[in-house]
């Protein structure tokens, strides 16, 4: 079996008395889209933050592509990337300047060619010279996506990738991400509240509640297990504590 892209063991994070993440363990296989689901305060963002090295865990271990994130994060960070509508990019820089900056930070070879390729794929040609702050929400999402793909990441972490986008643009982004994942065999870890997105993109779903991993499975498996017809209903069942007792223990 191929080495997991992400291997998390006994991961915990306490903020004072508050347990944000309480001993979760899971692994993510390469070349898969995995969704991380949970209500507000479930611990998704903190878990993502720990995987990216932004938050130091209280206990546990994280290996990304075999690299210990607590000891040598930069070795893994060069092969991953991240996008979130809640983490902005410098508005006064043009899209081209942004991509040049991040391309250099990630050590991308043939950077000009890579930017031209992304501009073609993401329809950014007209926008390259425009300041990021002057773009519409949809254009910003495409520019941010270009930044997150600049280094051809083997692991892409996405936080609400289609939040605030109209359905058409959202659909376009989902199709593009799926195509990228298939073409490059990349793994995508997706935190989202958009259940349609999860059903369409993810082949594996991790469900968190109150800092614990309460269930895991493919969308089809979860629908069958909870006897629901949509992932939205599954999400509500878990968020409202209607998870089956046998599944309320941490899931590895």
């Amino acid at each position, binding site marked *: 079996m191929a080495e997991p892209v992400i291997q998390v063991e006994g991961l915990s*994070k306490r*903020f004072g008395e508050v347990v*944000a993440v309480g001993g979760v363990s899971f692994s993510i296989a390469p070349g898969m889209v995995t969704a991380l689901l949970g209500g507000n305060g479930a611990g998704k*963002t*903190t878990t993502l*933050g720990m995987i*990216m*090295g*932004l*938050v*130091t865990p209280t206990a546990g271990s994280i290996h990304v592509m075999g690299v210990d994130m607590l000891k040598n994060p*930069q*070795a893994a*960070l*060069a*092969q*991953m*990337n*991240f996008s*979130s509508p*809640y*983490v*902005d*990019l*410098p*508005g*006064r*820089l*043009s899209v081209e*300047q942004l991509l*040049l*900056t*991040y391309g*250099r*930070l*990630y*050590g991308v070879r043939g950077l000009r060619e890579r930017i031209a390729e992304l501009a073609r794929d993401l329809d950014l040609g007209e926008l390259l010279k425009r*300041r990021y702050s002057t773009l519409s929400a949809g254009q910003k999402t495409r520019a941010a996506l270009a*930044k997150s793909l600049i*280094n051809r990441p083997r692991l892409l972490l996405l936080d609400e990738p289609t939040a605030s986008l109209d359905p058409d643009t959202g659909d376009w982004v989902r199709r593009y991400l799926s195509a990228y994942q298939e073409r490059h065999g990349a793994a995508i870890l997706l935190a989202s509240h958009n259940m349609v997105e999860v059903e369409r993109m993810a082949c594996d779903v991790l469900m968190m509640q109150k800092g614990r991993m309460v269930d895991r499975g493919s969308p089809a498996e979860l629908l069958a297990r909870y006897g629901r017809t949509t992932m939205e209903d599954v999400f509500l069942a878990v968020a409202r504590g209607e998870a089956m007792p046998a599944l309320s223990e941490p899931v590895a």
Partner: protein
Amino acid sequence: MSGGILGSARRVGAMVMRHYYLIRGSWARILDLFYWPMVQVLLWGFISQFIASSGVTGFLAQAASVLLSAALLWEIMFRSQISLNMSFLEELWSRNLGHLMVSPLRPWELALSLFATSLIRTIIGFAPASLFAAFYFDVSVYAMGFAFFLFFLNLVVMGWGIGIALAGIVLRVGMGAEGLIWAFVFALAPLSGIYYPVSILPGWCQAIAAFLPSAQVFEGMRAILLDGAIRYDLLGRAAVLNIAYLAGGVAVFLLCDRLSRKSGRLMQLGE
């Protein structure tokens, strides 16, 4: 892709270019580089002219030109510190820090890029003001020769030491500490003996001044301008203190980065 000295140099260069793009595209930021040094030169230049033209002789007549030189040298230290902190704050204001911190950029590389950007911004701001002082007020800091280069270096490095420690505190405490960036260095001004000898300070203030590189530089500047003597002892002391403070400042920055990741503050600042 991320390792080695060349990789570090490339990432530091990327950050310097990022700030170059930012400044190049903003008239307000370009103007800000020149504005305050020029205001200082005009203010102290006219004060110096007024003193010189009021019929004073001896020490006071000499002191007139010393005032403008002192104002210019103080501007080097202040520009160095504030430029470093402005570059750092730009990342917080644009909510870009999260992207940087999940890139292969190491915290010490971020610190190095802030030093480099600070140096460039300081030179860009200082050069026109000092040249204007030389041509319009006939007071040239460059007349101090090689000693000026050593003064410049010491003051820039002192600004870095203070600036990087303050950046660390903002990283740890959050934007609530932003006020420190604007105010802290002015607390050192009275003790640095910019416009007067340290010897007129009370004993306990002199004791503190002995540990300020800026106080050594301004004493050294007066020794050159008033006595024509280069005080290498003062320059050496300033250099030793600066090495210690720069190391301390970087240590504070790296410690605050670590504490900020531990407390989850870094993620909040990055969003």
